[in-house]
């Protein structure tokens, strides 16, 4: 038996990466489906949202259909994707599952992506359920610009994943995640335009709010789905793209900040 390895590229091939992530994701999905409470909650949240937004009469500049979809994406990204992933990553770290995963061929990034897949699938499924609800209610209208909501959903999901990974650096246990996630869950979502239109805030406050991590997702959704800018102005597709650079830049900026913070602060094992 030889005791040296053949010269080979140190970077794994894309198919090998996908195969490994898919294998881990299948295991994680099986775990999720065995958690009846989580499965039930995942189905109930969209239904409650569809019922609650019209019932509560949440005011806004958008028609009901787009308003429901914006609320669905925003609430799901914050309360399902971000919150669940912080708890999942921390619990797996404290149980030494993450460290075990790193002893094999999976890279660190593959471990995180594979672990996050069920949560990301639930996010997409919940948004899809709300979209079906909107159609059933007869409130569906064609998006002003289809690409912007897609960017908002996918970019938002990616952002929540990296922010969840970054948040684990100051979260010691799954229980303490209830506290450490509060800044993003409460503060930034309150200032995102999700619950209250940004146009009602004084301009300096609105400007600060537009720089928060969840706000660009809401802005891009409103622009793409209903052609409504952050200050309530109606625009066409060209106008939607014209108003998109700032939220796109803020989203990209937070992705960079979140990725750097996650790369520097993420721990794979409990503190000794």
């Amino acid at each position, binding site marked *: *038996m*030889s*005791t040296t390895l053949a010269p080979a590229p140190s970077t794994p091939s894309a198919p090998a990466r996908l195969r490994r992530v898919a294998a881990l994701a299948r295991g994680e999905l*099986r775990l999720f489906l065995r958690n009846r409470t989580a499965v039930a909650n995942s189905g109930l949240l969209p239904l409650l949202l569809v019922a609650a937004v019209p019932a509560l009469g949440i005011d806004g500049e958008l028609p009901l259909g787009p308003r429901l979809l914006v609320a669905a994406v925003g609430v799901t990204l914050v309360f399902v994707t971000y919150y669940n992933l912080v708890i999942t990553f921390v619990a797996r770290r404290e149980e030494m*599952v993450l460290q075990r995963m790193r002893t094999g061929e999976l890279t660190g990034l593959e471990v995180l992506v594979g672990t996050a897949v069920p949560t990301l699938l639930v996010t997409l499924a919940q948004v899809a359920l709300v979209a079906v609800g909107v159609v059933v209610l007869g409130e569906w209208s064609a998006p002003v610009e289809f690409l912007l909501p897609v960017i908002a959903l996918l970019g938002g999901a990616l952002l929540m994943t990296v922010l969840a990974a970054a948040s684990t650096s100051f979260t010691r246990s799954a229980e303490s995640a209830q506290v450490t996630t509060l800044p993003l869950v409460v503060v930034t979502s309150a200032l995102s335009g999700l619950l209250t239109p940004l146009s009602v805030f004084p301009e300096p406050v609105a400007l600060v709010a537009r720089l928060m991590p969840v706000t660009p997702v809401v802005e891009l959704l409103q622009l793409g789905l209903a052609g409504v800018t952050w200050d309530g102005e109606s625009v066409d597709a060209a106008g939607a793209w014209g108003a998109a650079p700032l939220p796109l830049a803020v989203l990209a900026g937070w992705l960079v900040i979140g990725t750097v913070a996650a790369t520097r602060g993420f721990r794979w094992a409990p503190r000794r």
Partner: protein
Amino acid sequence: MHPSAPPVSAPVEAAPAIEVRDLRRSYGDFEAVRGISFEVQPGEVFALLGVNGAGKTSALEVLEGLAPPGGGSVRVLGADPVRDRARVRPHLGVLLQFSGLPGDLTVAESLHTWAGTLTDPRPVPEALAQVQLAHRADVRVRSLSGGERRRLDLALALLGRPRVVVLDEPTTGLDPESRRQVWGLVRDLVADGAAVVLTTHHLEEAEELADRVAVLRAGQIVLSGTKEEIAETQPATIRFTLDEDAPVLPQVAGVQVVAQRPRVEWHTRALQPVLAELLAWAAEHHVVLRALEARAASLEQAFLAVAAEAHTPSA
């Protein structure tokens, strides 16, 4: 080696499977590993012994590619386990001292999931049989006993047909029968040409399995060699019981008297000549040496001596 494993280069004569040179690792100001060096050849078991906090796990984590070295170098099959991880990992099997598994997957599901992430996994039924868990394949991990969970850990570590195996306290928590089964597994690995590094608190385990041993104390190797070489660093022991009316014992060169009659204990580094002289004296004086014991030094004795030095203020 399995035919579908990635190709390897031409054999290099006597190249070590693991090569550690002046390895250092620190946590802040605390230096956990202070310049250790060792090599492990294919088909060899190398045991790292040491009391808790000696630096064993910190050293292994570098070898496993889980942490970069603070200084020095580590080569696994000729490659850096951190920088060349994609090349090294398909050939490396790791059993961590502590690690978890999702409790709601069954034993078989855990193995299938792990197999899906490996380049060349062995069949899951074969892996289950290897660790005597075939009858527990459909049981959820959270329902396994501690020993069964450890055996599942081991099955996962060996699932990828590794050429280099790192076992951090592999039999902790196992009953004696399971421990012997694990020893059998390690011997099979070595017979197939794998290089094995293990840490253990069970000196009997090191005696059973290791070809060579290193004893770590405060991050440094203070003893290393074969079991026999290490044992020879400590004196042999002769014990016997002597009646009160027996003649005065002879003065034998090279003997340290540890206990006087009635239960006499001598330590010596020349067991055979001292024992021969004692028996000759007993025959000449018609003395019966009751409950006579003569024992060469053991690995345990050497380890305990090193551990005792670690606990003295001057150590």
